[in-house]
């Protein structure tokens, strides 16, 4: 049975507003030019991330609770309706069955996911559904997922989303600017988005599966951070390649470089393809090992995921009972 003393180490996450944002810095082309990424070496590191660290028993439960607190619970499907968006929000408010929370000794913890992430047209539904909680409403914007709409439309979409109550905006960058090395244009674009966001936090989606090389991922990360991103995010979930560890490692290292150069902390959001509790532990351990404990909190780390939560719930129940759990035993999103 769980050692409840350890589980209690899990704390309520602090609200986003408590933390200083990255205001951005002038474009430094040197930082882009000096990027060095050796893919083979990066892959060697990521291939042992999961094998160098093993998290078991109550420690694992604590980590999984932390993972839930970092989830942007997401639905971005063509068949979304107000009904399933509301259901998603309900799950965000009550991510884990009450008896499991009770069993883990966490009934006092107001456990909820960090945010819900929806399409523009469902912002209002989501805002209503999470009212009274600190769950953020994140909207994908700027012509998500491909971003192939006119610039003015993108800026207007951000403004509209903020006006509708979205507190976090997940923008997509123009991949063509990366592929053709137009760093100034990319910087200007993202900076304009950031201005349009105002108080809303901005997550810049690099769509790394379409950037061709890890060096491009690192370069785009730097430009997006210089332009004032609060988070950099791997994928839309619509590219052929989703969040994978080598890409994550490169982005996380860029975040560290940026912090060391400017003193500003930028968050990281891997999104797409993360479906198992075990994977979530590897990502969290990546953050802890490469950036430190602080980067394992929702103001600096998010999972963009839709089905991850269901697997974590099963693991938590297993942790509690020692029996392997089934999906149907947990309320769906």
């Amino acid at each position, binding site marked *: 049975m769980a050692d409840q003393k350890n589980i209690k180490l899990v704390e309520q996450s602090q609200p986003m507003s408590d933390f200083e944002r990255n205001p951005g810095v002038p474009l430094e082309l040197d930082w882009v030019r000096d990027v*060095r990424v050796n893919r083979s070496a990066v*892959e060697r590191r990521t291939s042992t991330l999961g*094998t*160098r660290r093993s998290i078991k028993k109550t420690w694992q439960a604590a980590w999984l609770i932390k993972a839930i607190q970092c989830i942007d619970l997401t639905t971005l499907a063509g068949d979304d309706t107000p009904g399933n968006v509301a259901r998603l929000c309900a799950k965000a408010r009550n991510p884990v069955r009450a008896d499991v929370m009770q069993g883990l000794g966490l009934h006092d913890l107001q456990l909820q996911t960090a945010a819900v992430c929806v399409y523009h047209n469902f912002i209002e539904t989501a805002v209503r559904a999470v009212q009274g909680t600190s769950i953020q409403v994140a909207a994908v914007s700027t012509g998500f997922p491909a971003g192939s709409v006119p610039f003015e439309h993108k800026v207007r979409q951000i403004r509209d989303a903020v006006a509708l109550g979205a507190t976090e905006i997940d923008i997509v960058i123009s991949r063509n600017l990366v592929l053709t090395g137009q760093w100034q244009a990319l910087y200007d674009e993202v900076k304009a988005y950031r201005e349009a966001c105002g108080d809303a936090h901005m997550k810049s989606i690099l769509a790394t599966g379409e950037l061709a090389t890890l060096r491009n991922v690192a370069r785009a990360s730097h430009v997006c951070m210089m332009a004032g991103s609060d988070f950099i995010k791997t994928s839309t979930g619509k590219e052929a390649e989703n969040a994978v560890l080598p890409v994550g490692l490169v982005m996380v290292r860029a975040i560290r470089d940026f912090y060391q150069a400017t003193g500003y902390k930028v968050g990281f959001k891997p999104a797409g393809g993360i479906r198992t509790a075990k994977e979530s532990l590897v990502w969290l351990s990546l953050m802890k090992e490469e950036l430190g404990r602080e980067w394992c909190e929702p103001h600096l780390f998010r999972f963009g995921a839709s089905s991850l939560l269901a697997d974590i719930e099963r693991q938590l129940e297993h942790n509690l009972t020692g029996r392997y759990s089934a999906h149907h035993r947990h309320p769906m999103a």
Partner: protein
Amino acid sequence: MEYGPAPESRSDVDRWLADHKASFDLFIDGSWIAAKSGNKFPSHSPANGELLAQLSEAGKSDVDDAVKAARKALPAWQKLGCHGRARYLYAIARHIQKKSRFFAVLESMDNGKPIRETRDIDIPLAARHFYHHTGWAQLMDSELAGYEAVGVVGQIIPWNFPLLMLSWKIAPALAMGNTVVMKPAEFTSLTALAFAELCQAVGLPPGVVNIVTGAGETGAALVNHEDVNKIAFTGSTDVGRIIRRATAGTGKKLSLELGGKSPFIVFDDADLDSVVEGVVDAIWFNQGQVCCAGSRLLVQENIAETLYERIKARMENLRIGDPLDKAVDIGAIVDPIQLARIRELVDLGVAEGSQLWQPSTPCPTEGCFYPPSLFTGVSPSSTIAQEEIFGPVLVAMTFRTPSEAVALANNTRYGLAASIWTENINLALDIAPKVIAGTVWINCTNAFDAASGFGGYRESGFGREGGIEGLWEYVKPHQRKPGPAKKASKSKPSKPPMRMGIDRTAKLYIGGKQVRPDGANSLIVKDAWGRDCGEVGRGNRKDIRNAVEKAHAAKAWTKTTSHHRAQVLYYVAENLETRRDEFARRLSALCGLGQVEAELEVDLSIQRIFSFAAYADKYDGRVHQTPFRNVTLAMNEAVGVIGVICPDESPLLAFVTTVSAAISMGNRVVVIPSEAHPLVITDFYQVLETSDVPGGVVNIVTGHRDELTEVLANHDDVDGIWYFGEAAMARKIEYASAETMKRTWVESGSNIDWSQIDNYPRFLRRATEVKNIWVPYGE
């Protein structure tokens, strides 16, 4: 968000130990046999001092029994043939895989290394070695045609990778049809004993593998056993020296894989974050107890501080503790003796003024643990920059330019491995051949595979393990059936009249010039009828010294293209051809050969030069098929400066064969020609001079052969010695070579029929070292 304990279960191992009542005998002839002395010694777990088992100490007569068992098993094992042996190797590989977790836990408990490493590296690689060599067993007849097993092989392995080193040794030995007596390290014998059980389980014929436990004396008994045909040793350079001396002159084949102080070179355009992880894998893998550990960090000056800061930050995240914990990076040092040695060297480093940095991470105070350590401000003259620490201690130095990086990298007695970090492939592939090391890893480190050869230059030993280059250590050419004894030399031609010519005393040939001997002395040379027929310079130790210096200075020969070397050799042949009759007359007069015989020797010499000229650009390296996304280039490199001591037999042909073989591969040579018939070689100076052979590539010192040979054998800057002569001198050469681990090739001069050589690669392998360069790719 702490990691918490994550222990691997040890219950299977505990049960196994209990089943054996924590006591083991010797594995001889397929059975478990108590040591005759009844002596036992304890084996402890270094993590907590726990007594794991009592092991038997094999004495001389136990070792003798094991060797006898191996000898007895040899004929049937060889008769089994390629496919028959391949089946056994395959079965062993499968069994290792099936019991992999058991082996991983046992190894971790016995050695103290983290379970992550035994589970993910040691044991899978051990299985891979047997799989790979299953294939070599299968292919031996076709890929190593003309070769056969050496015989009974004595193998002595270290404690740092117990089962893996066992596999590196046993797999190729068995594949090539040898039988084995293996002595594991006294600290870590348990996986070898479990392996013995595995041999029983697969039904390996008794005596094919024998395991004798014990310490240095047991090893000495094996090394000195008269009926052992080869010794393969991995361990310290000091013990390697003892073995080299002990086996000198015995005719035992020998391969040594010894210590290192391997450079880890970081250029300013490297991916520094990846470099940091490389450093972790280089020096904090297996607690730094790795012969090829990247223990000397050479970093370009302008990025040194940045890199040190990043390394320190990373060190804070290393977890030290219980080796069986699945979230531990650094386990226990193998034994208190070793721990004391590390402490002593670190203290010395501090005393000598280098800056020591250790992380704040907790390091257990019970058990044999040592924290990861970084020394900065180290200079090449510091003891810790020269001595192998064999612990988790990295010493860092800076360099300014690529050539200074190479100079620092090579400023060591060792030459095992090197790691080069840069995003510039031009730079990487420029540096790789310049670094003296058997393995060079580009943008990676400590990558191993059965398909790639591993072994050292210089005092890191000789011979390779893995790949086809490793197989040569376990084979010998088929013994030719002794043909009908050659008819005692045909009647000597009639004595030619002596003619009064212009007085001519041949000089020495050093650095492309004919020079007078330092001692201003000469020796009288007799012809075949015992008449004085001329004089040659009597070279002395200083002449040898000068010759070696000139040979070193002629580096350009090694760097030039093989096409160019071939051209020069063809030109030598051409010029010899124009003087064919003159050389034939000389041979006839000096050796009493008939005209036909003498002309034949000259003609064969010309052909021989052609053969090696042909090989100059055809003795290719390989690209090994290692299971990574990378190119593993096995490059043949010149040994360097080779001393060649020619036999009296076939004085011209033997000279031409050995010298052209050596220089075709880019070596420079110092030759001592036949003492009885030197004049035919001093005549050859003019051929060399007219053939564009650059000065210093071939240096010839005449004089008393034994005297000069000893000087060469004791010269620390001579990389190899080829000697064709008497057994007593052969022994002296091998003995003396232990000092600097020269590559020696000693053979009785009459053993080789110089007119019948058809296996040229046999010479070329002696003229080269295989360097494996790992080049991962991917963007």
